[in-house]
């Protein structure tokens, strides 16, 4: 697996960790959707939902740091 340049790293969190037994708080206004990644479903924070042509895309920043557009299944 050579050659692909490293994407921008996601920002490393600073400050204090969330209290125990509580999930980390989402930034206000960001909703979450479940999408399929490989063989599993994961929840991601949505940056935007875009309709282009006859396809709808969920825009989010993936774990690898890339700006990613998940295509809604038809």
């Amino acid at each position: 697996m050579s050659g692909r340049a490293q994407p921008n790293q996601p920002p490393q969190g600073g400050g204090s960790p969330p209290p125990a037994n509580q999930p980390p708080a989402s930034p206000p206004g960001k909703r979450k959707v479940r999408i399929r990644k490989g063989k599993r479903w994961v929840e991601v924070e949505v940056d935007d939902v875009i309709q282009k042509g006859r396809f709808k895309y969920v825009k989010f920043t993936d774990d690898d740091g890339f700006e990613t557009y998940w295509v809604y299944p038809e």
Partner: protein
Amino acid sequence: MPFVTARTAFNYGTATYIYQPSTYCQHSTSAQDYGKCYNIVVGKAIFVQTDTTTYPTLPCESDGTCTRYTSTTWERTITTIFSYSGKQAILQFFNSRSHSSVAITGNIMYLYGLPVPVPSGLPPAYLWFLPSPNYELTSWPIYNPLINYKAYVDPYKITVGRVNIIGWQGNFFTTSAELRVYESNVNNIWYAFDTVVVWAYESSPLAIIPLDYDRDYVPYQELRNVFGYAYTGVDQPGWNADDIISVLRELFPDRAWAVFDDKSLILYLYNLTPDFVPDWLVEKLNPVSMKVLMRPSNSSIAKAWLDELNRRNAYNQSPSEVI
């Protein structure tokens, strides 16, 4: 290993989406309008005239309606349809229509002025997947049920010249194919044509970038067999998506391109955003997601990629209908 279908069309003067184009050129040297081409739909017709003393410039050259060749040949290669690096492809279908100053006569091997997709490496005019050269058929149309081969002459009339149509369906295993025209070393001929070609190839990661095979040949050599070439700019299979991305980054850092990983079903975009990815490409590849490797610094780079892909693939629509 699943196979996927590729289809493309070549429009040289006429176009697949026009039922009865009236494209023609004047090749009668006594005519006042000698060397002019009329009613061009898309692209340019082809005119062969070797005499550059009497005819330094033909009118159709001046007004951009023809490409002129100044030497005759037995067989002219118009372009490469696809050329894969060790990947299996199967040529399956073509339909070719030409308006030409020369008609199909006698032996159907000698389809003067009518383009035929040919697997590379065959001797000139050795179209052995077509009917035997010994078939002397003089009545038209021809239908050979054994190989599903059809040929027609003059299904409709044009002002000057003949209309020739052939169609073929079958299987020819090859790694590359070219579009060639049998000209029989004849001077002062013209032809305009549209040809549809269908082939299949192994599902693979794809490099999606229109490479100009003829003029950009040196960079193509530099692809180092990481991926193949196809006129569509889409059906260019390689072995490994990461290797394709690596080579494209190196060769075309300032152009827009995409790479489709057929395992993870991710479409990687470079100098592109989904705004520039046409619906027909999403329908063809059916990606789960798109990832932006790099946003375009200038939207004209991305637009150039989209326009060229549309030109080569949205062939069933007139340009004004292409989204």
